[in-house]
């Protein structure tokens, strides 16, 4: 059967189930149907050999990446040799993948035209996930900051018998004078109150 007619078996190794789900959806949208997810590291190599995939995608936060490197070795256990997907001339693709936080291992002899779109999908999904995570982190830290400022306002309101707007104005003025962020001033107020309290 010609290489292009055979459906590719893809294994996703990702410690993050959320990201793995996003990845799998992306690959399914691109027409791939045989996708297996592995989220733990138990007996990894034996499981991969049992699946006998064409393409393995692994996130770079995963120590098991070194386990996959064993697939390059000459061994009776390996039925099909696995090579790096990208050849020497294609370092831009490697760089893009590593930058996005993912690495790919592909069985030797698989046509480059078949692998490129898979990697492109992977890279774009990894980037999208990283962006999502960064936004979530930012939202979380903004929420934390607001809580800190609210606590500091409360302390000032009680100590100085002022209202909320006046308390906020005090924090803002101190921040301007000291060239600091309001949240930093708020944290100092809380720390001071705890020490004096």
């Amino acid at each position: 059967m010609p290489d292009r007619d055979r459906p590719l078996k893809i294994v996703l190794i990702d410690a993050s189930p959320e990201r793995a789900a996003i990845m799998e959806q992306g690959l399914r949208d691109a027409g791939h149907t045989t996708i297996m997810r592995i989220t733990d590291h138990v007996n990894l190599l034996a499981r991969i050999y049992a699946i006998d995939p064409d393409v393995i995608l692994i996130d770079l936060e995963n120590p098991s990446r070194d386990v996959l490197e064993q697939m390059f070795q000459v061994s009776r256990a390996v039925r099909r040799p696995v090579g790096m997907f990208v050849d020497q001339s294609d370092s831009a693709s490697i760089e893009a993948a590593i930058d996005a936080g993912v690495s790919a291992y592909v069985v030797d002899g698989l046509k480059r035209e078949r692998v490129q779109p898979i990697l492109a999908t992977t890279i774009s999904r990894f980037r999208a996930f990283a962006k999502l995570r960064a936004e979530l982190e930012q939202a979380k830290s903004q929420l934390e900051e607001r809580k800190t400022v609210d606590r500091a306002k409360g302390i000032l309101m009680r100590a100085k018998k002022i209202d909320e707007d006046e308390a906020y104005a005090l924090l803002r003025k101190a921040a301007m004078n000291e060239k600091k962020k309001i949240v930093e001033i708020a944290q100092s107020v809380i720390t001071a109150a705890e020490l004096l309290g």
Partner: protein
Amino acid sequence: MSLDPVKIGFIPLVDAAIPIIAADVGFAAEEGIALELVREVSWANIRDRLTLGHFDGAHLLAPIAIATTLGLATVKVPLAAPLALGLNGNAVTMSPPLFEAIRRHMAPGARMADPRATGAAFKAVVEERRRNGDEPPTLGMTFPFSTHNYQLRLWLAAAGVEPDEDVRLAVVPPPFMVDALENAHVEGFCVGAPWNSVAVEYKLGRILHLGVELVRRCPEKVLAVRAHWLAQNPELAARLVRACVRAADWLDEPNNREEAARRLAAPNRLDVHAHIIQRALDGRLATGDGDEARISDSYILFGGDGATRPDHRHARWLHAQMVRWRQAADDPAGAELAAASYRADVYDAALGRAAPPEEDDPLGVFTD
């Protein structure tokens, strides 16, 4: 004065001590370097990030630096090792049942610290299992291109155990090693500090051999940089070498061990209990076999015994292991490239020292 930034990737192991101490005790800053350390989770990541230029330098398994220079199982990028990050530090640990099986097969009067005797006993265990129709033992090591792989193979082959036929050798990332032993995915392993002691601490493993019992002066990690980077930044590289050598000398001072263990134990460094790290620094390792402690003043070498000077004969030996185990072609040009990547000339020039006379046996392999 502004400091020159240098970014180095490391794996959380005791033998990352030299760059960690250089950064955290101030030796790098004294040389005008802002040394940023980035903790990584896999050797493959470190290798790729070094070759792509995300890192200026790396705490890297010496065989990976050579394999990358030769383009074995990875994209070929010439690397250089202007400094060895010490020598030794590995140990071979077995599960308590396998340890006991080996002991039962020891020749009368033979010592457990004698690798010929334990190898023969291990061979007997393997043969007994085969007769009984049992699975061969699986032993863990950290990477195909690693001294852990070669030390295990050396021990096995010397006893007539064929590493690719009679046992299974499996890559297990060091942080998963103890877990793999607990779940019986491996029955033993060769790994660096602190993981052998962690296995002993949890009573999951017993140390059979310190690495020094197999190879007295074994190359382990190097400070690897791209050869191109070294050519572009000779003066910065020299300062980096000096900072690391100072850190290595500081690590050799017994009075500094407690502080060293504490600094290495930090959450952003190894994130392992200081008292376990200290065992490696002291060269006094509880084996888990009763109250026995195996003691060696060269269990892990930092500054002493010329351990930081990259010795081209170590590179040649590592290349010979790759050839022996069919990772590299038997090509004299490959051996020369490997040897040339060990840059003792850069090391000597950085320290303003003349090349020392070469000792007769730079390795001390137990079979020689």
